[in-house]
């Protein structure tokens, strides 16, 4: 507490400095430090205690703690046990077994079991799976629901305009399967173990390791036993180092290690920033009379306005019980900070075309995850010395088809096929200690993945016009359906999603209906259904670069959009105990690892890092 005279003197100095500095040019930390001193009656309680923000080598509580890590060597380390990582692992071991070579492939995955953090619609195009495991049917892959009906609608508040699903349109699903992706990933994990991949679920890759020449050496798993305030507990254990000749990063959309690699190796200098959407999903057990197995329904329009990209899906599974998977996707380039993707999802379910299917049913699961929408324009450089990026991490999703699994798996397989000859060559031909495999990127560009992404590259950006959704649909009809994406131009995106939010005072709050508890539900009961849990006594893994920015900027200018876009209720602005002002409360235990906050925070102050392995949602066949 400063005495009054000293405070006012400091305040006057600060105000003079503020008038000199233009806020766009000052770094956020500098601005808010001055801002904080200028209004020092509101002191910011400490929120972030994670060692990535408060390094341990300067922290007296960590003096004398043994920080040496056990290290082990593998040939290939794969970060992430999703479709891309597992496809790469399986392909590597298939090649090794075929050519009778010894190859140690280790895969680390933060979920407590393979598939527990997997969430997807999903309508799977089986092309990549058939290339990887041609006899998947005999091996019992859980592709049990071929698509029988494909329905597309434009919704208005009360009505529905049907859109004919003509062959050739990207959304057409003939030949595809409705799957529970978590079950497919679990099955892929079993296939991987059969061919000799070492799978380590429950261990998160927390740090990238580098050789002295700057190439990637491998990864280190998370430390365990750090208390909430950042101090070491009695059971503190250092993570382990896994060294590899080459490391594959398949963390899925907006991976936290990939974020560091983009900076370190400048991988994004020649591509557009990635754009994203958030997908929320529920599983419902419905009344048998309403069940139409194999039916696929997609819609656009209500409840979103024509300038907010998004839409819904509803798939009737056929696995012996009347189960439907349904959900809602909202493009994260939305401009209104009052928009809540969760509540848009909940109110969409009340539409007269949707509600009858759900009446009399019971919701049994909930979850959410961010997904890529950048497509062709946003693919970064894919390889760097010692590593490469696969799957949704660099982002190969075909947005109008809303499918990214087949391209993710193919990218994993291409990576394996590019790496294998280099690993098993007589002499290790590499300038750097970590193997550089630029052949992977070349092979990808020559594959059907690239052709597919190129053909649909202009569909998503075509929504950025005055007519919004309708302009985009007309563009798709003309240039994709008729001309197959061969137009010579490539449209640009609008910049990062975080920069799209308009200040709250320029926007109107949205009146959402209250959940009725039968079809629509409140946030907390939904989060409970995700089964998410984390060890409570650990530093919050939603770290803030500057603890004062949320109240000063996010709440001050944008009315705290993180309270609304987080699908798990992690962020709450609560009144201070002293009565005046608010503070940000982070309920890290609720986190479902969707990554939306890291993407959409207008101040880009939130940095999601991986919590202790084994924590997070417990999705079952999502």
């Amino acid at each position, binding site marked *: 507490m400063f005495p009054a005279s000293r405070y006012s003197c400091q305040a006057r100095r600060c105000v003079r400095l503020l008038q000199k500095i233009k806020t766009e040019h000052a770094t956020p930390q500098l601005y808010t430090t001055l801002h904080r001193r200028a209004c020092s009656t509101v002191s910011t309680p400490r929120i972030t205690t994670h060692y990535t923000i408060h390094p341990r080598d300067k922290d007296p509580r960590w003096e004398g703690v043994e920080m040496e890590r056990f290290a082990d060597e593998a040939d290939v380390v794969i970060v992430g046990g999703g479709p891309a990582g597992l496809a790469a692992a399986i392909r590597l071991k298939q090649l090794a077994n075929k050519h009778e070579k010894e190859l140690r492939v280790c895969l680390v995955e933060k979920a407590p079991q393979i598939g527990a953090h997997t969430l997807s619609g999903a309508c799977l195009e089986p092309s990549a799976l058939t290339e990887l495991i041609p006899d998947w049917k005999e091996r019992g892959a859980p592709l049990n629901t071929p698509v029988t009906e494909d329905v597309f609608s434009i919704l208005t508040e009360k009505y529905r305009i049907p859109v004919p699903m003509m062959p050739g349109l990207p959304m057409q699903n003939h030949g595809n399967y409705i799957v529970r992706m978590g079950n497919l990933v679990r099955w892929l994990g079993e296939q991987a173990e059969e061919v000799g991949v070492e799978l380590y679920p429950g261990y998160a890759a927390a740090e990238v390791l580098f050789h002295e020449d700057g190439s990637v050496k491998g990864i280190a798993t998370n430390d365990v036993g750090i208390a909430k305030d950042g101090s070491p507990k009695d059971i503190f254990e250092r993570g382990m180092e896994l060294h590899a000749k080459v490391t594959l990063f398949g963390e899925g959309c907006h991976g936290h290690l990939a974020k560091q690699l983009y900076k370190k190796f400048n991988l994004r200098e020649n591509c557009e920033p990635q754009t994203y959407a958030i997908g929320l999903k529920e599983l419902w057990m419905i009344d048998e009379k309403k069940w139409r197995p194999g039916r696929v329904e997609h819609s656009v329009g209500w409840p979103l306005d024509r300038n907010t990209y998004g839409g819904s899906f509803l798939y009737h599974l056929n696995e012996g019980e009347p189960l439907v998977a349904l959900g809602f996707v909202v493009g994260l380039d939305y401009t209104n900070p009052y928009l809540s993707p969760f509540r848009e999802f909940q109110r969409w379910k009340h539409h007269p075309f949707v509600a009858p299917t759900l009446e009399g049913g019971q919701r049994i699961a909930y979850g959410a995850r961010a997904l890529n929408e950048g497509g062709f324009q946003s693919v970064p450089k894919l390889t760097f010395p010692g590593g490469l990026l696969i799957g949704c991490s660099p982002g190969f999703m075909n947005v109008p088809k809303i499918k990214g699994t087949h391209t993710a798996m193919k990218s994993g397989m291409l990576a394996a096929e590019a790496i294998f000859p280099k690993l098993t060559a007589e002499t290790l031909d590499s300038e750097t200690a970590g193997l550089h495999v630029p052949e992977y990127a070349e092979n990808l560009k020559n594959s059907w993945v690239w052709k597919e992404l190129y053909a649909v590259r202009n569909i998503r950006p075509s929504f950025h016009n005055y007519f919004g959704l309708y302009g985009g649909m007309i563009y798709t009809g003309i240039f994709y359906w008729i001309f197959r994406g061969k137009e010579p131009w490539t449209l640009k995106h609008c910049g990062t999603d975080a920069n799209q939010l308009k200040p709250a005072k320029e926007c109107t709050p949205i009146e959402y209906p209250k959940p009725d508890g039968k079809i629509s539900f409140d946030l907390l009961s939904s989060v409970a259904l995700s089964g998410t849990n984390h060890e409570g006594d650990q530093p919050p893994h939603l770290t803030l670069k500057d603890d004062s920015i949320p109240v000063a900027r996010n709440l001050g200018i944008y009315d705290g959009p993180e309270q609304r876009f987080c699908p798990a209720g992690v962020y709450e602005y609560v009144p201070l105990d002293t009565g005046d002002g608010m503070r940000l409360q982070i309920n890290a235990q609720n986190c479902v690892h969707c990554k939306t906050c890291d993407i959409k925070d207008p101040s880009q102050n939130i940095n999601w890092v991986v919590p202790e392995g084994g924590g997070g949602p*417990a999705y*079952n066949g999502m």
Partner: protein
Amino acid sequence: KCPRVSPVVTLCYCFVSPQIRVKPDNTGVVTDGVKHSMNPFCEIAVEEAVKLKEKKLIKEVVAVSCGPQQSQETIRTALAMGADRGIHVDVSGKDYENLGPLQVSKILAALAKQEDAQLILLGKQAIDDDCNQTGQMTAALLDWPQGTFASEVSLEGDKINLVREIDGGLEHIKINTPAVITADLRLNTPRYATLPNIMKAKKKKIATVKPADLGVDLTSRLEVLKVEEPPQREAGMKVETVEDLVVKLKEAGRV
């Protein structure tokens, strides 16, 4: 003179997901795909056994689990925490659905005799069925002393000093070996099974046996008639005065 006891630690492979739902035919709960892992009280039991071994008070820690193939994962975790070897009693399918404390304690009694164990450590109860019976039944079948709800264990010669957490407070007892001890929450804080230890554990031995090999009959004496969800919690109501409360209680037939 320290007793050379070789304990057997038994582990429950139980489901730990917070979201459980009843099967549509009301015969049980859905277990397919639900997250399973080691029972938290059993983690504490393993930790205690490993601590005793580190103090050189016991010779060898053997981890046992009864269940399907996947329960071997739980044994691996125990091996990663410091157990020396594992025994997987293979019970699957219908037998596994009917496996209850009585059957498990018969298996443990048979194993204890076979392994010449001097100490059996278990968790006090499993968090999926909350039975709190296996330890007690095992002791009865073997005619061994039991120390249940242990919050402190110390070996003294060939006797064990135990502090038990009971409703009235803490009870101090002294029992002979061989004995059965069940672990309560405050006995210790289990260590993490770190990745290097999980990797080393892959090399440790897990033997598989069938209940028939141990001469155990798994027939259940219980038949589940029906499983139902608990009734939905109803909203409460506020009353202004004590008189109102009494009236409401009388209306609800409670008074």
